[in-house]
């Protein structure tokens, strides 16, 4: 019998034979997009450190990816990743985590990492709900949705993550859905190559919690929903606020160059060490 191995299997830990995600979860699509991006760039997994927080999507790299992986406390992966990058600027540092982890409990770290422009690639899986803990309202839950903790419909307004991180000054911001794996992969590649902070927001399906709460349905219906309700950013620009209501704006929001933090640290040290050695010689 011939055993056919998944072409990305070489990037996962040999002893890890299954994941913790539910059937139909979008995590698999995002995990593949990350690994395919690394594969297409021809990079080595040993040049990466993957950092994640708490929540379903934090289990994308840990324990699956065959690389250095740091699975941290709730909300803090960006803060840990900042230390990893400054401690080892030559490594690629990637954060994979969810909307609750990175924008509710950990929102401040995300904003400040974007402001500092530290060279970290953040793949933020936005499923609009707390999946692991049983379907509670998230800052990204659409207003009016009935969830476990908003049984009469959530009264709060949803956060626009990509807009927030654009405002914080990140040089690369893009949003796609799991219906757009190729575009998602391309943006992750650009994020990895960007010398600076990159946010790739992946709107993803949680059929078990969000699909049920929204009555959209299972994975297939949710992907269909993403297809039907996604609008490219350039097209959305010409639309009224009312027309954009309930739509998912996809595409690249920012792609620019900006002085990065860890390289400035390296440069300053180099300069001061040279000055010191000149001083000692003279």
């Amino acid at each position, binding site marked *: 019998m011939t055993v056919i191995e998944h072409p990305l299997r070489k990037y996962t*830990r*040999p*002893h890890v034979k299954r994941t913790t995600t539910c059937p139909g979860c979008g995590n698999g699509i995002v995990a593949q997009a990350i690994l395919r991006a690394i594969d297409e760039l021809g990079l080595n*997994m*040993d*040049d990466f*450190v993957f*950092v994640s927080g708490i929540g379903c999507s934090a289990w994308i790299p*840990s*324990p699956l990816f*065959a*690389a*250095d*992986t*740091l*699975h*941290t*406390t709730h909300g*803090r992966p960006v*803060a*840990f*990743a*900042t*230390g*990893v*990058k*400054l*401690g*080892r600027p*030559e*490594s690629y540092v990637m954060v994979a985590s969810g909307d609750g982890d990175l924008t509710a409990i950990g929102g*401040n*770290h995300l*904003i*400040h990492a974007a402001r500092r422009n530290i060279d970290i690639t953040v793949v933020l899986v936005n499923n609009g709900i707390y999946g692991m803990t049983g379907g509670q309202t998230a800052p990204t839950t659409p207003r009016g949705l009935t969830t476990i903790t908003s049984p009469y419909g959530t009264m709060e307004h949803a956060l626009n993550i990509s807009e927030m991180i654009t405002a914080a000054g990140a040089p690369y911001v893009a949003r796609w859905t799991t219906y757009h794996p190729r575009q998602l992969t391309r943006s992750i590649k650009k994020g990895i190559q960007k010398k600076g902070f990159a946010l790739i927001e992946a709107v993803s399906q949680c059929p078990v919690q969000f699909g049920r709460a929204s009555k959209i349905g299972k994975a297939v219906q949710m992907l269909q929903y993403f297809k039907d309700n996604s609008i490219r950013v350039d097209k959305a620009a010409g639309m009224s606020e009312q027309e954009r209501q309930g739509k998912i704006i996809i595409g690249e929001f920012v792609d620019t160059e900006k002085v990065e933090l860890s390289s400035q*640290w390296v440069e*300053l*040290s180099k300069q*001061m*060490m040279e*000055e*010191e050695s000149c001083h000692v010689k003279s």
Partner: protein
Amino acid sequence: MSKESRLPPGTHFLMGNYALAEGAVAAGCTFVSGYPITPASEIVNRLSVLLPPLGGGFLQTEDEISAICSAIGASWAGAKAMTATSGPGISLMQENIGFAVATETPLVIVDVQRLGPSTGVPSVGMAGDVIQVARGSHGDYQIIALSPGSPQDMFDMIIRAFNLAETYRVPVFVIPEAFIGHMREQVVIPDVSQIQRVSRKLPAPGTDPMNRRDFQDPDVAPMPVFGRGFKAHVTSSCHDEHGMRNLSDPTIMHSFITRPIEKILKHRDDIVQVEAEYAPGDIVLVAYGSVFRSAKAAAQSARDQGLKVGTLQLKTIWPFAEDEISEMAQNAAHVIVLENNMGQLFPYIKAAAAQYCRVDFMGPKLLGQIHDPEDVLGFIKEKCA
């Protein structure tokens, strides 16, 4: 003080916080993170100047949570890392101090203690965090905490803290009170060749953590730091000795908690340091930090007046010096515990000493004010008459 480079070896007149900063770079520290807070700020102010020419840097974070997390991240990236704050910052850091314990991360945390609870008084010292540094994070664990009593101790103990952190792969606290942080006194900086520097052990090259023991060795597992191809798996969730998450096996849950504790207690003789100056039959004053200075002065006055009084200084607060205190109490006439709080360490000292002799507690007349040696002398005469 020269602006950009470290102080040369020799005798200096230095503020405690500056002495600690000099000691940190002498120990090989290259990454420091922190958030401004009185009375600790001078430490990071000085290190932000000293670190770049040494190939490192200071990261001013958005809060103390980010400070501890980035220091842990830098440590896993291979740097000797430190964060410095005061009590309110420690309160914010507690969850991730537990992360450092659970992932066996070498790290130094400085808590320049101020008067509390809550925002309290920023610039007045108090030993109010003695229990919170040991028990503030949830779950069960052991911690190492050192208590400096002078600017010289600040220099010496921060070096020792880094060496203990690297030797045992643990977070180590240095907990001066604000008085010691802001005190200016003579500090002798030895020649570089006289300073012992310890660095963590790394595993032999290899790419599969399933073939290594990366965690939970009571004799300290080599640390698979990032970027060397070790493919380390690090999580603070319950994990086995390969670092792999396991939330179902009760024996792994047990060793996840017990082995890091065992690692510290097994080596307690190397870690615990006390300064004993007493003779059999003495009344012994037990103290630490700034209060020890009063205890020492009071003991001298008492001896000058013909009273038999000795001292025991706890230089290591955690792990607790239970054996040393029991040994002292066995031949003591009376033990008096002096603390600049309402008696945080007193129950522990009493538990170790009270079966041998009488044990009394003496706080300062006003909390936040160091004991007046005259008051201590009066207390000795009153209690032991």
